[in-house]
């Protein structure tokens, strides 16, 4: 099962996302920002990092990369897309997900092992979790505060589109402690914490993150 990982200039966790896909049993395929060729992958991960240095708004330039035009069209037809951290920011800029990620409330970059609750286990990327499962996944970003207007928030909450929420001390001032959301269809998921850094207890605080990747693989196998 081929899953693509996009490398933008300034992507950092692209090789880590590829490793997580391989650990989950998939085949990671490297996709280049400057090409619109999805190389026949069946899902895509937009990895963490600082695309184009994020000197403008995070993800604002990456959103216009040739590869994104293919991803946007595919996503609108149900193609699974996971945006992690900077990838989440790119998805918001591309309007595949609502809202925006702004500077952390504490104004510092924050790296810590974050407790989360998985609140929707019916998306393509979370179906392997049990509902309300508590997990620990590294969070590391400077602009991870999820913001949106009241109406959007209501839609997200009532539609079950909040897929993960922060537990414990508020890390960044996100509305309703939102750590991750999906689109209404459940194929596009954005997540601020880094599941690719929680695939084994040797290099991460847990292996909880692996389930994001096994979820999509199961989904794709089931569909095929």
């Amino acid at each position, binding site marked *: 099962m081929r899953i693509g990982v996009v490398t933008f200039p300034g992507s950092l966790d692209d090789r880590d996302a590829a490793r997580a896909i391989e650990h989950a049993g998939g085949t990671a395929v490297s996709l280049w920002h400057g090409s619109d060729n999805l190389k026949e992958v069946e899902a895509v991960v937009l990895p963490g990092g600082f695309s184009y*240095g994020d000197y403008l708004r995070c993800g604002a330039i990456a959103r216009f990369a040739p590869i994104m035009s293919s991803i946007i069209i595919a996503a609108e037809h149900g193609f699974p897309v996971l945006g992690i951290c900077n990838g989440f920011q790119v998805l918001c800029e591309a309007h595949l997900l609502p809202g925006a990620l702004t500077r952390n409330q504490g104004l510092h970059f924050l790296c810590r092992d974050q407790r989360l609750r998985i609140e929707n286990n019916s998306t393509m990327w979370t179906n392997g979790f049990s509902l309300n499962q508590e997990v620990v996944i590294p969070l*590391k970003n400077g602009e991870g505060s999820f913001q949106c207007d009241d109406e959007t928030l209501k839609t997200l909450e009532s539609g079950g589109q909040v897929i993960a929420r922060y537990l414990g001390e508020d890390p960044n001032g996100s509305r309703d402690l939102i750590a991750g959301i999906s689109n209404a269809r459940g194929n596009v998921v954005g997540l601020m914490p880094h599941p690719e*850094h929680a695939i084994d207890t*040797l290099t991460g605080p847990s292996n909880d993150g692996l389930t994001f990747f096994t979820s999509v693989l199961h989904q794709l196998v089931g569909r095929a």
Partner: protein
Amino acid sequence: MNLDTVSQAQIDPDHVQPFRELGLKDDEYFRIKEILGRRPTSSELAMYSVMWSEHCSYKSSKVHLRQFGEKAPHSEALLVGIGENAGVVDIGQGYAVTFKIESHNHPSFVEPYQGAATGVGGIVRDILTMGARPIAVMDPLRFGLAQAPDTKRVLPGIVAGIGGYGNCLGLPNIGGEIVFDETYAGNPLVNALCVGVMRHEDIKLAKAHGTGNLVVLFGAKTGGDGIGGVSVLASETFNDAKPTKRPSVQVGDPFAEKVLIECCLEIFHEDLVVGIQDLGGAGLSCATSELASAGSGGMNIQLEKVPLRDPSLSPEEILMSESQERMCAIVEPSNINRFLAICKKWDVTATVIGEVTDGERLNITFNGELIVHVPPRTVAHEGPVYNRPFAEPDYIAKLAASTVDVPLPITAAEIKDAVLKLMASPNLADKTWVTSQYDRYVQGNTILAQPEDSGVVRIDEQTHLGVAISTDANARWSYLNPYEGAKLALAESCRNIATSGAKPLAVTNCLNFGSPEDPGVMWQFAETVRGLADACLELGLPVTGGNVSFYNQTGTVAILPTPVIGVLGVIQDVRERTPMGIAKAGLDLYLIGQAGENFSGSEWAYLHGVMGNQAPELNLDVEQRLINLLLEGQSIFESAHDVSNGGVAATLSEMVLRHKIGAKVSLENPAPTLFAETPGQVVVAIEPTSTNDLVALAGKFQIPILRIGTSGGENLIINDADISLVELNQAFTETFPKLFG
């Protein structure tokens, strides 16, 4: 534009030049004239002045640093030694590792964020230049008193700068130190270490060989930042209308560096360069003269081809600019198209600016006019060497004769108070406020990071091979006895490596001192180098490179002599690493090594304002046996933690707080055992069933062991002192947020 050319210099030999303003001494200026047989052009003067500066030429330290070569132990592991951008060691399985530490002290005081950020950028380029992928960074930092107003300006800026740059490069920050002492007020120390990995066959060197090969400048465009003293020349030579007060601290662009890293690695992968050098201190002057000097000698450069951010820059400024994120490569003409294509893929600007010649001179022209015509070795490698006078300062004997009179906590209440006070003190308090601003996860190979004894990074996912890095310095011991202090720092760093389960392999160092023109400071420096060289020889560890930072002083007050020693270790299977935290109840706790009663230079003495007596004398034979014990016993240690700053009290506190699992400890002689600082000790936790194995190891390596307690519960209990982990954790964790927000 009034261009000072070589022919101009020949016709007006008596033209007055501002060499003193550029930091050159009279005799140095005369030597330049002697070398050239004429006065230097303003461009040549600029080049010599920066390359002969203390920072670039090591003119005060060279005579001492030679000991690292003279006393070097035979090491099969050493692949590239001192003199290149960074040393390289063999860690087996065809992998080579390069690591180095450098200072960026002065810029970080002037402009904390950019100073610290570009410090990271510079050391990362040094590692990249060797052909390696950078895989981790570490930052030992030192500041004035934690509560001082200027520390509140400097520390947050420096931490944000290190994070801002390193995080954006995708390099995990796996450790370092933060130490406060009043002598660092006005002279904060920002040392940056980087480690990188490559295959043996991929090692690159900074050499320009092969007549006709092309000199390519690539990376960021050249701007007016980081020019420093050269603005003196600019304002002297040119009209006053142009901006001369450019920022002398460089401005970093981590995105440009990240792209440059990936671009370089792709170029290396296709083996497209003959030699490569990064542009750091002294910019293009340094890169061209060092490449030519280490190569066949001749090089022609057309300076007007250098892409500029600011078109008004003079040739002197272009030569001196320390704009970041630039590299200089020597490329065979047959490879140039492929080289440029890779640069284009990464949107990296690359320009051919010259070629290697079969001559013996570095010639630089500007729009066809010859402005530099020098033998490159005289610029890069044959600078002045000073035998500066040195003498033991008076304070040494005076302090040695003094006694350390500190309160000795004996009762339960006294011990509890002392532990809480110690763990809340800025030097020992939890550093999460700092380390949470650094990404420790990126690249997915971090096995251990701060606050562990050493940072451990996996090199190979299949074989589980990894490396461990630790940096240490105990400046108070170095102040009391610089010879012993250097040895103690090396021993501690090695012990940290072995405590995590890795075998020490090689050493790097960053020697931070006051003014070399002060004979007392120079003596501290000489003694430090002697001690480090002796200790490295005895432990069989090669010094692979390092950095000297002088002039860390305000007025007559120098910083404490601060040799930061970095040790690289290799661990065959990272899954076997030993973490510091106690992870479960029911383990037996042992103190390995001989407890002592020496409080001199200890944190406990520092908290009571007492500095005196003698640094502990180090027995390297004991240290070596302890290291062997730790390595052989690795499989029985559930956790292990070195005893250093804050003594056994701090070691135990850190072990129980890591996973909030307590311990009950009884000590016969609690005050010195807990609070004195004695080298050569480690606290370990083992399963009770491993007792016989530990006793056998202790016998084999003749190291004393003492069972001091068991793990479990929600308190740290020492004799009758009962400290709840909640209370201890609060004392430990609230200091930094209170101080820095």
